[in-house]
C-alpha cells in the first residue's frame, strides 16, 4: 500500500516524538515560516558559531510530514558546518524533486531518506521542505548578520 511508503515508521516516530522541538533560549536568529496553501507554521531558532550550527530548536504546527521532516533536519544539521548542512539540504531538495525516482543517499541524509516517498506526492513536497527552508533562511540571515557585525 502506497500509504506505507509515504508514512514510514521512522517518520511517524519523529512525528510523535519530535527532536529539538521547543524553542531554546539560545539563538542568533529566529525565523517564522508558513505554508500559505495549508496554514502550517514553523518557528526556528538558530545559532551559528565558527561556521558551525551550534544550536537549533523549533516549534510549530503541521502535518506529520512537515513535523517529522523538521525534526530530522535538526538532527542532521546540528553540530555540522554550515557548508555541510547546505550539502545535505541540496541533496534533500533534489530527492524531494525526484518524483519517486530517487531513493536518497543514506550516508548523507540518514533518517531523511525515509521521506523519499513524499516525492511521489507533489502536494506534500512543500510540507517536507517547510522546516528546511526555514533553516536556509535563518542561516543566510545569521551569516549576513555576523558578517556585518
Amino acid at each position, binding site marked *: *500500500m*502506497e*500509504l506505507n511508503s*509515504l*508514512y514510514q515508521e521512522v517518520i*511517524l516516530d519523529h512525528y510523535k516524538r519530535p527532536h529539538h522541538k521547543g524553542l531554546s533560549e539560545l539563538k542568533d536568529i529566529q525565523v517564522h515560516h508558513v505554508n500559505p*496553501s*495549508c*496554514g*502550517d*507554521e514553523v518557528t526556528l531558532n538558530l545559532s551559528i558559531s565558527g561556521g558551525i550550527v551550534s544550536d537549533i530548536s523549533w516549534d510549530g*504546527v*503541521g*502535518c*506529520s*510530514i512537515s513535523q517529522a521532516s523538521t525534526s530530522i533536519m535538526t538532527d542532521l544539521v546540528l553540530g555540522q558546518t554550515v557548508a555541510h548542512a547546505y550539502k545535505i539540504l541540496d541533496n534533500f531538495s533534489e530527492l524531494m524533486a525526484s518524483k519517486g525516482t530517487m531513493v536518497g543517499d543514506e550516508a548523507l541524509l540518514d533518517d531523511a531518506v525515509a521521506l523519499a516517498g513524499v516525492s511521489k*506526492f507533489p502536494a*506534500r513536497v512543500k*510540507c517536507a521542505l517547510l522546516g528546511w527552508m526555514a533553516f536556509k533562511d535563518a542561516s543566510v540571515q545569521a551569516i549576513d548578520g555576523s558578517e556585518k557585525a
Partner: protein
Amino acid sequence: MKTTALNAQVLKADFPILQREMRGGKKLTYLDSGATSQKPLSVIDAQSNFYKTKNAAVHRGAHLLAEEADEAYEGARKIVADFLGAHVDEVIFTKSATESLNAIAYSFGNAEAGSKFALKKGDSIVVTEMEHHANLIPWQQLARRTGATLKWIPITDEGRLDYSILDGIIDSTTRVVAFTHQSNVLGTINDVSKLVEAAKKVSAITVLDACQSAPHFAIDVKKLGVDLLAFSGHKALGPTGIGILWGRSEILEEMEPFLFGGSMIETVTMTDATWARAPRKFEAGVPNMAGAVGLGAALEYLTSLGMENVHAWEMELTQYALDKISNMPGLKVIGPLDAVDRGAVISFTVEGIHPHDVGQVLDQHGIAVRTGHHCAWPLMKKFGIAGTTRASFYIYNTLEDIDNLVVGIKSAQEFFKVG
C-alpha cells in the same frame, strides 16, 4: 430513506470524471465540490460545440459567425438572468467570483469624490469573520486606499453570525456591507434579510458572495434585496474561467467601470473616453464566450433538475453526514450541528491527526476532500485551529459516498493509531 425527485446515482452517469479510477483502483468519491464542481457532459459539449460551429468575437462582427456567437453569448446571459430572477442587463460576465468582488471594490475606488460609491476617512466597510479571502482582502485594500475603516461581524462558537451586536457594527458610518451567503467552511447560511435591513437603515450598499449558495439552492435577487452579488461558474457545474457579477440596474448605471478596453466604450479620443451602458460597460475585451455558453448549459442542467430538488437532496446528504460524522470518536464538526440554515459543507477535525494526513489517507480510498484553511484563515484562528478537513456535497453525491468517507476516516484513525 426519504425519496426525492433527484437520483444522484443516476446523475453520476452524466459526469465523465466520476467514472475514472483513482489510486489503488478505487472509484472516485468526489467530496470537494465546495472547491470546484465536476461538469456534466452537456456542459463540456456545449463549450466544444461553440468552438466547432460558431466561434467568433462577439459585439463587433457583421458576419454570420459573429452573429451566431453573439446570440449564443447573449443567450447565456439570459439564462443566468432567469436563474437569478434578474433583468438581462444586470448580468455581467467576469472570470470568477474573485474578479467580480475585486471589480466592485475597484469600481468604488474609481468613483469621483462625493459619489455614493466613493469612500473616505470616517466611512466604514463591514464584512464578517467568516469571509473567504476573496470577500475580505479586496475590502481591506479598498479601506487602505481610501482611509475607510474595515469592521466585521464576529461569529459565535457554533459558527453563526452574532446578530445580537449588529447595531454596534453597522452604523451611520457604514457605506458597504459585504458578506457571504453561505460559509465555505462552516456551511452556515447567513440571514440575508437581517443584514440587508440593517444596511438599508444606514443606506449602505450590500454585496453578497453567493459562491456557495447560487449553485445549491434557488436564488432570487429581487427577494434577497442586495445590491450586488457574485458567484463562480466552476462551482455550479460550469467551466473554469467564468463568473458572474450581478448588480441592480440603478447601481450598475452609476458605477464606474473596472476594466478598460474594447467594447466597453461609447467614444474614445487619445485623451478621453466615455462608457457604454451596463452590462457592456463592465465587459472590456473579447469575453470568455465559450465559458459563458458552458455556464448557460450548466444552469440549464440545474434548472432542469429543479433547484428545490437540488436543495432537498443536499439537505438529505447533510443530515445523514452530520449524524454519522458528529458521532464518530475524536471527530469535531466546526460549524452548526443541525441541518437548519446550513448547506452541504461539513468541516471537521480529527483528534491527533493533522487535516493533511486525514486527506492523504482518504485519497488512498479514492475520496477527494479539501484540507487546510480553505481561504478563510481568520476563521481558523478564531477557532484556534490550523485547518480542517472539509467534505462538501453536490447533486452527484450519494449516501454511499458518505459511508465511504466514514470508512476512510476510521482507517485514518487506525493508521495513525488514534481515536
